[in-house]
């Protein structure tokens, strides 16, 4: 069916003439040529029968491979840190209530990549070594001689319900044996709640949580100060409210400026966004999908309204075909 008829779908008679003279059989030959040429190129570049890898795909694959490698590296780092902290603190006579500044700094620094589960592993590891679970305590952990899996602990006087009697807790023996004393348990748990829940490779760069830790003593000291301050600064708060209103008035006038600054391709902003999404690799700066905007050239010259041509009053031609008059 296609052999006799022209195969091109166009209304231009000159093209029809050319294709008809060439014939359909020849039109197939130029199609086959490119793969052959490509194949010879491939053999020189890489293994045969394998398509040439798109450098973009290679970059993305490498990016993910690097991410996985970074995760593994972090895990080994955490393991090393645990091994390091098992034999902490450096001095056997150190006091957990007031550790030496170097020890405290090293302890806090070592805990940065930790998740709570890693911290639990550290406590377990220290207990196996026979030490108290709190990283800055050099003492041995408690050993309860009596059998039985649970212990009853009594709180201070007046800690019970309604402020009378004593608070009573039933605690598994293992939990009690983790620490040398209740104070150390409190200190260790105070650190644990400050650890970031998500693994270190998913954390954002600007997140403060899980980077700066406060020991229980430091936390208590800071709390005492803030309590004193909050009672004294009613005036300050009023002053800040005034500032806030002024800021609002200013902001409405700056709005136009802000919009002017806003543009579709803001390089620094897109980089921030990439950082937030975890696409920090340079290959992904432009996004995961390549977009090439190609402007057509034929839009040049002023556009004019269509004009009447001869024959248009009867409806004109339809793709070159002029209907007959009836």
């Amino acid at each position, binding site marked *: 069916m296609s052999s006799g008829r022209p195969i091109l779908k166009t209304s231009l008679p000159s093209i029809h003439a050319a294709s008809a003279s060439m014939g359909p059989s020849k039109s197939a030959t130029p199609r086959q040529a490119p793969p052959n040429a490509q194949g010879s190129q491939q053999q020189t570049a890489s293994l045969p029968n394998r398509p040439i890898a798109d450098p973009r795909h290679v970059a993305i694959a490498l990016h993910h491979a690097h991410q996985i490698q970074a995760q593994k590296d972090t895990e080994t780092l955490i*393991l090393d840190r*645990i*091994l390091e902290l098992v034999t902490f603190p450096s001095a056997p006579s150190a006091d957990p209530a007031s550790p030496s500044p170097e020890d405290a700094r090293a302890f806090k620094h070592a805990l940065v990549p930790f998740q709570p589960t890693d911290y639990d*592993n*550290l406590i*377990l*590891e220290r207990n*196996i*070594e026979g030490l108290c679970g709190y990283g800055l305590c050099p003492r041995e952990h408690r050993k309860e001689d009596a059998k039985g899996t649970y212990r009853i602990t009594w709180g201070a006087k007046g800690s019970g319900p309604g402020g009378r009697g004593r608070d009573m807790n039933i605690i598994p023996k293992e939990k009690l044996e983790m620490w040398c004393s209740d104070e150390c348990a409190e200190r260790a748990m105070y650190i644990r709640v400050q650890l970031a829940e998500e693994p270190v490779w998913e954390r954002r760069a600007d997140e403060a949580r899980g980077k700066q830790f406060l020991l229980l003593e430091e936390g208590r000291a800071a709390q005492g100060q803030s309590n004193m301050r909050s009672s004294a600064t009613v005036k300050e708060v009023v002053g800040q409210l005034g500032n806030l209103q002024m800021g609002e008035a200013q902001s409405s006038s700056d709005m136009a400026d802000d919009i002017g600054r806003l543009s579709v391709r803001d390089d620094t902003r897109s980089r921030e966004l990439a950082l937030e999404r975890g696409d920090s690799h340079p290959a992904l700066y432009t996004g995961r999908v390549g977009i090439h905007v190609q402007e057509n050239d034929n839009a040049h010259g002023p556009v004019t309204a269509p004009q009447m041509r001869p024959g248009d009053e009867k409806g004109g031609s339809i793709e070159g075909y002029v209907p007959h008059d009836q």
Partner: protein
Amino acid sequence: MDDDYATSSVDADREMTRLWRTWRTVFEMLLDRGYEVTEDEVQMPLAVFKEKYSDPLGYPDRNKMKISARPTEAMQAKYTPLPSKSNPTPQPDCGTIYVEFCPDATAVGTKQVRTFNHLVDENNYHTGVFITQTPISPSAVRLLSSMPGRICEHFQEQDLLVNITRHELVPKHVLLSPDEKARLLERYRLKESQLPRIQVSDPVARYLGLRRGQVVKIIRRSETAGRYASYRWVI
């Protein structure tokens, strides 16, 4: 006779017997994996074991219990990868195995594992098997498995009390050599990812020390066909 002494000797006897069964399973395991062990070692009677490995009080002395075994020719053939263009004469990926029983009765942590790792590395053993009485801590597991270039496995004594592969409901597992694997894949025109799978943490896979990427043949009894073979890809 002293009553105290009697109870302690009964205790020691029980522990000794339990350990003897573990010991025996370890040797059966080495034999099934294809290491060179003698019939006498596998079939060691309890009396001989007691004589050899107990301290003066009658309790087992785990420090004496160390085993090392070399792979047989058959095993080396099984672990030799197929020759390729980049590696025309491949070396077998197996070597001397070393088994140690940890003497610590309480929790085992990174300290013991580190010394074990060090020992395996120093004596250039290919594989190390660390057998403890209690479970080991998560960081110790990670430390044990992160030995570069060597394979370290961990078992608990109670896991090896009974040889699970001798149970009537456990079918026979046979490891295929790379050559046999290639032929299997060619015969059924499969990619290895199209095979059914078995986990590395599977009890039998752990017993046989299977590694990722190997294929194991499982032969079961079948009422209709007599024998039925299936294949699993270790992941």
